[in-house]
């Protein structure tokens, strides 16, 4: 791997055993902290909001989203999140949960989705999307991820996502792989999932959308990815753009069979 060269150059400075023991106790405390948060995840509040939004008539056509087809047929919410992203016949596109919700809002409710796409994260428009995703993800909790690559467009999207994962650019030369292409590494005290292997992708994919305790906000995967790109010093990805769906497809398919723990809670 890339960093082997770096490690050899610095071999003389690898830390002593004492430092490692201290690190272990730090990580143990962090795990205790996370455990205390798990019971009583404020994401539940957003789940309830999302369910209400799902069932409440809205938009120019004044209908609810209850007839939205998330891939398992009109109105089926349970289990749908576990199989997204997927290819949809009516749009002939591979769509993630949020992209599909936009399709339903446009087609069923007659909503102008351009305003939702443009609205910044944290705006009421995006908050509504986040609540909906939280509700939909909760209806697949404890189910295994089961994303298909059977359709050529699904496989193509996966391949593009994998390539995007390694795409390095910007003033800091960062790609997704810079931080998520190796096992056992951390940023500060946060352990980084290795998204190039099933285990790491499983840990990552099955814990989003998540309640962020740092901001008290509910973050969807779209928001998570947009903020990853911000930290990468990239321009901002368009909401539900192909880059975001491709990366999700890559992560989700890598995470196949992992059990969903959605919605999650994060730092």
């Amino acid at each position: 791997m890339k960093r082997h060269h770096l490690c050899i150059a610095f071999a003389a400075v690898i830390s002593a055993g004492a430092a490692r023991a201290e690190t272990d106790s730090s990580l143990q405390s962090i795990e205790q902290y996370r455990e205390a948060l798990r019971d009583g995840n404020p994401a539940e509040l957003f789940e309830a909001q999302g369910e209400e939004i799902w069932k409440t008539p809205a938009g120019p056509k004044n209908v609810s989203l209850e007839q939205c087809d998330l891939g398992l047929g009109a109105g089926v919410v349970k289990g749908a999140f576990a199989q997204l992203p997927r290819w949809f016949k009516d749009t002939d596109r591979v769509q993630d949960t949020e992209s599909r919700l936009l399709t339903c809002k446009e087609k069923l409710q007659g909503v102008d989705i351009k305003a939702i796409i443009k609205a910044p994260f944290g705006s009421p428009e995006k908050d509504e999307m986040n609540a909906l995703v939280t509700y939909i993800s909760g209806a697949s909790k404890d189910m295994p991820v089961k994303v298909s690559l059977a359709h050529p467009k699904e496989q193509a999207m996966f391949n593009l996502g994998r390539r995007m994962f390694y795409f390095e650019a910007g003033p800091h030369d960062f790609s997704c792989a810079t931080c998520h292409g190796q096992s056992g590494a951390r940023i500060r005290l946060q352990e980084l999932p290795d998204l190039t292997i099933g285990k790491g992708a499983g840990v990552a994919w099955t814990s989003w959308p998540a309640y962020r305790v740092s901001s008290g906000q509910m973050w969807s995967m779209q928001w998570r990815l947009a903020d990853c790109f911000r930290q990468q010093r990239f321009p901002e990805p368009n909401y539900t753009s192909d880059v975001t769906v491709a990366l999700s497809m890559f992560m989700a398919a890598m995470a196949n069979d992992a059990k969903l723990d959605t919605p999650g809670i994060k730092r």
Partner: protein
Amino acid sequence: MKTFFILPLLLAATPALAESGPKTDWGQGADDAAFAAMIKSSFHDKGIATLARLDQDSTQAFCSDPARATGASKEAVEAREKIEAENLATIKWPADNTWLGDWKKGEAVAQSGRGLTSSDKADGVRGGNCYNCHQISKQEIAYGTIGPSLWNYGKIKGDAPETLRYTWGKIYNSKAYNACSNMPRGGHMGILSEDQIRDLMALLLHPQSPVNQ
């Protein structure tokens, strides 16, 4: 549109892959047109983070192909050596031969992960992101492990001229020593000023710095 340059650049950077060997089903050479179209349609300018940032230089294009960035083939090894030589040539050494600045300021630079994101101002303070990936001073328990521990760096490495030179060069342009290092090119990409690099040098090498206690 600046992003038009991506595709030719990618192709130019991968002659060996395009001409010889089996075509893989993903990555550079497999779906270049679709990939370039995806990049072009998927981003928008935000603040100082404009679309121009998606234009790769030759190092970035090369390192975006994991097979060549880490592969053991003779072609890959030679290509990496070439990239390293190119990057080494960019390093600007301290003009007045002053290598060390103020380690206290260096600690602040090392702690900060700010600067150059879409939510930062153009003239905002830029940090070095160092603790994100390295253990440095023993007092900071929240350190990352993507890079090696730098605790006691100066104590172990000493202050010989070649150590000063290597350390400066590594901070200025890490890719001069490892073509596809995960470490940003602090000086070369204009992330850090010369004074900030001096301060980081002091943090790592000054005998009084907490790093060497």
